[in-house]
């Protein structure tokens, strides 16, 4: 389990985390598919509490964000921080603890949700014992990551590490503050905040969980793996510096756009809107940086299916980071809030950006980790088209459903009376939900292809022992 020599990168923990990440992706996406089926045929839960929509939904969100997402982020952070620092992982045993303890937290957390232990705060549904466990393991993650950077042999801290660093620090801050609660039993607690105040804190957390976990962390992934795959440096270093700090500063303010026309002070709502629009700039600056980097490396596309995923992920990143600020305008939000348009927006980011860039990274990284070729380039290409089709179908289904809902809910006739009853509007959503179900099945199918492909790639192989290369004195620290 531990590499003897001090001259070798610790990569076994990386591949283990990737394996867990893929397992969670399959499980959580399958849960998503089941949930979308429930919205069409509500009786498929057979009257069982553990198949009920309300209890399963957080299983899907937590499984994706904390299972699939965090495992992928830990894996890629551990891989890239070593190589950008030219040292082994600091405290490798702690890294293994992070790996396994985290999976235990996600698994038992998921079971706790099924059992009904639910704080109801989105992406923070796990009760206080799990919150404490998460904090402890997150601190371990921080120690391993920052410890590696602190003991690095390369003078400059590479940009991908700033993003992973921001992920670790900001999520810690958000998690602790938002989950402050008074326990009243081993399995139940009450939030320190109430009502409108709780709303503001919750969406400061909720939006920035998206911002620093789903966006920031994966940008760290992009900044390391894209130049690696394209075998080109990042197009503009200066742009990345400005974009990083602008990003870290502005994202935090955008939370209140989840609360337009809700019972919180108007100035908070306005601030949220303005900063959401400002946020567009650093987001797109990063996207352009990525696109321009890869556009010079186009010959790689001939042989490398992984790069296709990264390219499209950047396009969807552009879409999602444009749609977000747009939906933050009150005049658009008035239609979109509470509708499936929000769900569509979430998934254009989750499927189009997060999943696709992770898939691209995995297709690149896993063969490299075991020193083999990818088992089947054909299957990877097939996966690419399925992922693209699934994502676009999902988005269109939810745009159709969401815009219809939003407009029809608001629709009044000339004398100001409601034109449509809620039930009729809801009933007309079924075909859109059907389309979304098909989209999810396609996306899940593609993911399964990847799981098979990568499994066959590593079968019977060991993780390659990679010697840490000598440091060019021009870039090294004096030690």
């Amino acid at each position, binding site marked *: 389990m531990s590499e003897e020599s001090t001259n070798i990168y610790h990569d076994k923990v990386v591949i283990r985390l990737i394996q867990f990440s893929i397992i969670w992706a399959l499980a959580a996406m399958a849960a998503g598919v089941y949930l979308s089926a429930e919205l069409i045929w509500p009786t498929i839960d057979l009257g069982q509490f553990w198949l009920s929509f309300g209890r399963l939904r957080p299983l899907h969100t937590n499984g994706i964000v904390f299972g699939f997402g965090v495992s992928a982020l830990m894996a890629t952070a551990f891989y890239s921080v070593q190589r950008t620092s030219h040292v082994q992982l600091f405290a490798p045993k702690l890294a293994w603890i992070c790996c396994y303890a985290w999976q235990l937290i996600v698994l038992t957390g998921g079971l706790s949700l099924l059992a009904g232990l639910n704080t109801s705060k989105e992406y923070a549904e796990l009760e206080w014992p799990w919150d404490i466990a998460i904090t402890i393991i997150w601190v371990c993650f921080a120690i391993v990551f920052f410890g590696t950077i602190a003991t690095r042999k390369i003078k400059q801290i590479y940009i991908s590490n700033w993003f992973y660093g921001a992920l670790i620090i900001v999520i810690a801050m958000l998690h602790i503050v938002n989950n402050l609660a008074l326990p009243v039993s081993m399995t139940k607690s009450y939030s320190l905040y109430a009502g409108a105040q709780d709303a503001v804190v919750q969406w400061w957390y909720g939006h920035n969980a998206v911002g620093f976990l789903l966006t920031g962390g994966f940008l760290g992934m992009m900044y390391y793996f894209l130049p690696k795959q394209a075998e080109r440096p990042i197009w503009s270093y200066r742009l990345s510096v400005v974009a990083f700090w602008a990003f870290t500063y502005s994202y935090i303010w955008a939370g209140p756009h989840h609360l337009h026309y809700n019972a919180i002070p108007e100035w908070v709502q306005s601030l949220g809107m303005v900063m959401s629009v400002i946020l567009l700039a650093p987001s797109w600056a990063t996207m352009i940086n990525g696109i321009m980097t890869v*556009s010079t490396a186009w010959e790689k596309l001939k042989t490398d299916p992984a790069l296709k995923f990264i390219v499209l992920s950047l396009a969807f990143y552009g879409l999602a980071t444009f749609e977000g600020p747009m939906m933050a305008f009150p*005049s*658009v939000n008035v239609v979109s809030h509470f509708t499936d348009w929000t769900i569509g927006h979430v998934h254009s980011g989750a499927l189009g950006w997060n999943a696709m860039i992770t898939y691209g990274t995995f297709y690149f990284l896993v063969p490299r980790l075991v020193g083999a070729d990818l088992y089947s380039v054909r299957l990877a290409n097939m996966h690419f088209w399925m992922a693209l089709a699934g994502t676009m179908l999902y988005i269109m289904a939810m745009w159709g459903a969401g815009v219809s809902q939003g407009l029809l809910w608001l629709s*009044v006739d000339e004398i100001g009376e409601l034109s*449509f009853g809620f039930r009729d509007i809801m009933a007309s959503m079924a075909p*859109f939900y059907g389309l979304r179900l098909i989209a999810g099945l396609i996306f899940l199918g593609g993911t399964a292809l990847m799981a098979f492909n990568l499994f066959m790639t590593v079968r019977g192989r060991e993780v390659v022992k990679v010697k840490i290369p000598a440091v060019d004195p021009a870039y090294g620290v004096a030690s």
Partner: protein
Amino acid sequence: MSTQVYSFLLFKSLYQPAATFETLSKANPSPFAILFRYSIWLLVLPPLFAFIGASNFGWRLGADEPLVLARESLILVSLGYFWVLVVGLLTTAIISEWMADTYGADAPFGRHLALITIVGEPLAIASAAHLYPSVFVNILVIIPSLIWAMYLLYKGIPIALDIPPERGMLMASSLVGWLLVAAVSLLGLSMMLWTLGVGPLLGV
């Protein structure tokens, strides 16, 4: 050259896209000629179908009474739809020309305009679904036509602009990125206009 180019663009692109793109790669059509003798026919189809469908059948939600808008607002909406398509076509062609340099393409603007029009043709034809005013049916019809359009985009860019397939793939993906943003902007802009009072009656 002129009349020959356009008739084959209108019809041949539907059943022999590769040959069409090949011919286009050697052509240097005037943008005005493309716009007024070819694109315009496709641009009027969606607003026309939308107007006919909405004024004769109304928009239906479930089993309820169909919603029929007043004729004046229908005309305004259709005209607005037409202009949005014109602007969309022109901006996409302009952006395509702007991006071309990054991907090693060097084609005149008229060729970009022709290419984007060809890409949009399946959607223009599929807009006949507007005659049946149901949001869901329209989405159902748009999906295969969108797949077809995207196929034409990915196939057409490298051939018509005479660049390697990988560079074409990257450029097409960047255009897809732009188109996604354009689509969602249209959505947002429409919502903004409607909630600010320019459009159907909303109780905001």
